[in-house]
Each structure stands twice: as structure tokens, then as C-alpha cells.
């Protein structure tokens, strides 16, 4: 059984039909990549899964449970973490306070914190600093760290490499590889070269529809398909 299934999901935002027919399954384990051009509907797909937009009609099931129409907070409590494109950092709070908020009971174990520091060592240095004073890369680290401070079933990550320096993108790829050993990641990306290093399964979305599903290995091998769906040669 798939961890997450999207079935003919449609999402309207005000008078705009953004998602027309999004159907794909995310298997448990590893990184599933959702690729697509700018404005194709990738972020809307993640927001619809989290209940931030209401898909109608269509359905989203998580571990076989229909979560369509559930409140965002209740979806999160099922073990789904969300790292939005804008990182969603609380700039007026310290790094520690941001991390505390990401826990369900207000505390985290020392071993779990060591695990997070192991992936993002820089966070320890900025622990008591306002999150708003961090650099873009550090904020992205904090945003992902929040998603893993407690073990989750699934992490939805929206374009984590956007605007980051190449060295930080490399570090991020290493971090995601480590995290995906214990948690499934649904990664939305425009940066194909980053995504191909991580993804096992993938789908391509275009104009609000899933236009391709398959293994990353096969997609990487088919340059003609890449060009057609992602305009990589343009």
C-alpha cells in the first residue's frame, strides 16, 4: 500500500482552476520527487495535501485514511510535516523557540537534538538567536530541522534549493539523503539536477495535471522526455 495517494485531485483558488487532475502514489521510504515548470501546480499540490487549500472533488489518502477536507493541524498530527517554499520561519522567535513549536508536547529528547545537529551543525551556534537574523540557507536548514525534530511519517518539502548558494544546495542534498533513511520525503523541485540525485520515484506536473509518472532512473535516461516536459534544453 502507498503511504500517500492523490486521486483525481482538483483544486480551485478563487475563480482559478489550478489543479485539474492530479493523481499519483507516494510509496513508503525514500524521496519521491514532483517536478514541473514554474506555475505548473507543484506548490498547490503540497498545500492541497496539507489542507491549506481544499481539493474538490478528488481525494487524498494517507496510510489508507481519507484526509480530504481535514483541518491542516489534524493532518500535521498524523505525522505529516510541511516545509513551505517561503520556509515559514517565525522570524521574531529564536531558533530554539521555532524548534519547540515543532514538537507536539513542547520538549525534545537530547538524542533527537543530537541527530538534528548532526545533519545541520550550524543550528547549534544560532540556537538562541532570532530566526529572522539568519541567512537564507540557515533559515532553510531551520525549516527542515523543524520538520525532523520529531520523527514523522512524511515530509513535504517545497523547492528547498530556491535562491541558495551551490555549496548549501550540496549540503542540503546530503541532509535529505540522511533524513530519507528514516522518513519518506515528497520533494517538489524545479532544480532537476538536484532532484535527480535524491529521487527514486517521480512525477511531472504540467498545467495542473500529472503528465508523467515513473522511476527517476528511467526519466534521467530519457533526455527527449525531459526536454519535452521540463524544457531543460531551453
Amino acid at each position: 500500500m502507498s503511504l500517500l495517494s492523490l486521486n483525481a485531485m482538483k483544486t480551485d483558488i478563487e475563480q482559478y482552476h489550478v489543479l485539474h487532475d492530479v493523481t499519483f502514489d507516494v510509496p513508503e521510504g525514500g524521496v519521491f520527487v514532483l517536478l514541473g515548470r514554474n506555475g505548473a501546480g507543484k506548490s498547490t499540490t503540497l498545500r492541497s495535501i496539507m489542507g491549506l487549500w481544499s481539493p474538490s472533488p478528488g481525494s487524498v489518502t494517507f496510510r489508507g485514511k481519507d484526509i480530504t477536507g481535514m483541518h491542516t493541524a489534524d493532518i500535521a498530527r498524523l505525522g505529516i510535516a510541511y516545509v513551505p517554499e517561503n520556509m515559514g520561519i517565525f522570524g521574531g522567535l529564536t531558533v530554539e523557540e521555532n524548534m519547540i513549536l515543532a514538537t507536539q508536547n513542547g520538549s525534545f529528547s537530547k538524542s533527537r537534538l543530537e541527530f538534528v545537529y548532526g545533519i545541520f551543525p550550524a543550528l547549534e551556534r544560532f540556537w538562541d538567536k532570532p530566526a529572522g537574523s539568519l541567512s537564507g540557507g540557515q533559515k532553510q536548514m531551520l525549516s527542515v530541522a523543524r520538520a525532523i525534530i520529531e520523527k514523522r511519517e512524511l515530509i513535504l518539502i517545497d523547492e528547498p534549493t530556491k535562491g541558495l548558494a551551490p555549496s548549501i544546495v550540496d549540503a542540503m542534498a546530503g541532509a535529505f539523503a540522511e533524513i530519507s533513511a528514516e522518513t519518506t520525503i515528497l520533494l517538489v523541485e524545479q532544480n532537476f539536477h538536484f532532484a535527480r540525485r535524491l529521487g527514486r520515484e517521480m512525477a511531472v506536473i504540467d498545467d495542473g495535471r500529472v503528465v508523467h509518472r515513473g522511476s527517476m532512473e528511467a526519466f534521467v535516461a530519457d533526455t527527449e522526455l525531459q526536454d519535452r516536459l521540463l524544457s531543460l534544453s531551453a
Partner: protein
Amino acid sequence: MNATLERFGGVNLLPLAVAAVAFVLIGAPSSWVTLTVAGLAMGMMVFLMASGLSLVFGLMDVLNFGHSAFVSLGAFIAASVLAALGGWLGSPSVLMNVAALAAALGAAMLFGLLAGLFFEKVIIKPVYADHLRQILITMGALIVVEEAILAIWGGTPITVPRPAFLEGAWIIGDVSIEIYRAFAFALGLIVFGGLYWVLNRTRLGLLIRAGVENREMVEALGFRIDRLFVGVFMLGSALAALGGAMWAGYQTLITPALGAEMMIVVFIVVIIGGLGSIEGTLLGALMVGLVANYVGFLAPKLSLASNMILMMIILMWRPSGLRPAVK
């Protein structure tokens, strides 16, 4: 310039700067002390009224023009309780005085809590995320409450008795400090301390501060902001009622128009202070209280416009207010 200002205490020093300028302009120290105490007391009472509105604004982006209905209700409920306990108020026993005052303030706050719950569920909830409808429906609710007060208490101004232990003034040399004003200031300070502690030292406060910044993300972390909002709304309503009750004792004569009169001042304080910030609200309230009293003494013809002028000056300097939580 801002960096230099921050090094010396930043905008927190503004009330001190205003007081210092007023000291020079007023000249007579005894008058200055009296006006300063009156300004601080007024500021604290307005802070009580405005603090909830600021959080509601910041947390849920709700424009509640009916907030001052809780101020009116608090004032009239407290006045009725105090009138009913007239025997206790005049008693030489301070304990009886305190009991009467506590009963009046407690009744006002309890009514504010319940009215806040009703208001949020029936009036605010259907118009989340729709500012125009929020303004229309909350203004309408304010008018309904005013008319209800008129129907229950009548149109004649009501005299509000004060407990005997808060009557009179402390005379220190040439300076006279009204006891009620000192009490209002102390009460406001205690409430501010409590709010500050909750917001900065508890998990609930952490959630509120985070919600003011980005409520969507707080929900994505697994917390129901809508439920938290009901609690904040009720607390804000109770504090507004407490502010109204204290204001009633300060004015000693109240009319059903009290809420509408205070609405402008409360909104000015919230805007000056910056949305969603308790510290900003306190700063804005103290500035409004001090400026209103100083200008009323120095240039009485300008007193009505003083708060508007203050708001214009501050917004031209800091468009988001003095200490906004939401930037």
C-alpha cells in the same frame, strides 16, 4: 539614526522624552507631576482596553470595530455592581471596599469573557478573512450593544461610586496624586506583567506570538489556531471590560456612548503601538495618555486632535507602528 536610537533604549524611551519636553513647556513641577500621573493612569486604562484588540488583529487579521462594546458593557456592569454594593463601598473597612471593587471588576471581566465567546462564535466566525464584512458586522454589533445598554440602563448619565479607599489624593509637598489614578496605573502594570509573562514564558504565549507572525505555519505544525483565537478573543474582551470598568470609576459619570467614544482612542493606540504586540500597545497607550493630558493643559483647543496628530507623526516615522509584531 535608528541604530543610535536603539542603542539608547529605542522607542521605549519615547514616553520619557515626551514627559521631558512637557516638563520644560509646563514649567511648574507640581502641575507636571499631576498631569503625568493622570496621563499614565489614562494610558494604563486604555492599554487594558486595547491589548486584546491588538492580539486579535495580529493573530487572526480580524478588524473588530465592536471591541469597544466590551468596554461599555464592562463599565455599566461594574457601575451596577458598585451601586448594588453601596453599603460596602462606604464602609470604613478597607476589606469591604476591596471586596466590592473586586466583585465589580470580576463581574465585568466575567461578562466580558462570556460576551467575547458569544461575539466570536456568532458574529466574527462567519466573516473570517473578509475585512469589509468584518467592519460592517462589528460596527453593527456595537450599535446593537449601545442600544441594548440604552434600553437596560436608560439614557441618563449614570454616576459611578468609588470605594472609599480609592477616594482622595496623596499630597506630597505641592504635588497631589489622586489615589484612583495610582491604583489604575498599578493595576495596568500588573496586567501587563501577567500578559508579558504568558506571552514570553509559556508555550501558550509562544503559540500566540508565532500565530501573530504566521498562523498558517502554526497550523501546519499541528496546532488549531482557530481554537486558540477563541481563547485570545475572550481574554481580550474580558480585559476590555476591565478597562471599561476602571474607566467608569475614573470618569465617575458614564453614558451609553462611552464605547463609541473610546473606540477611536483604542484603535489609535493599536495602530501607534504596532499590530499584535503587547509591548507596542503599552507604549502606544502611554503615549496617548501622556500627550492627551499635556496638550489638554498646554493647548486645550488642540486636545481633541492631539491623538490624531500623534498617530500621524508616528506613522510617518514608522508606518508599521512603534513595535509591531507583524511587519
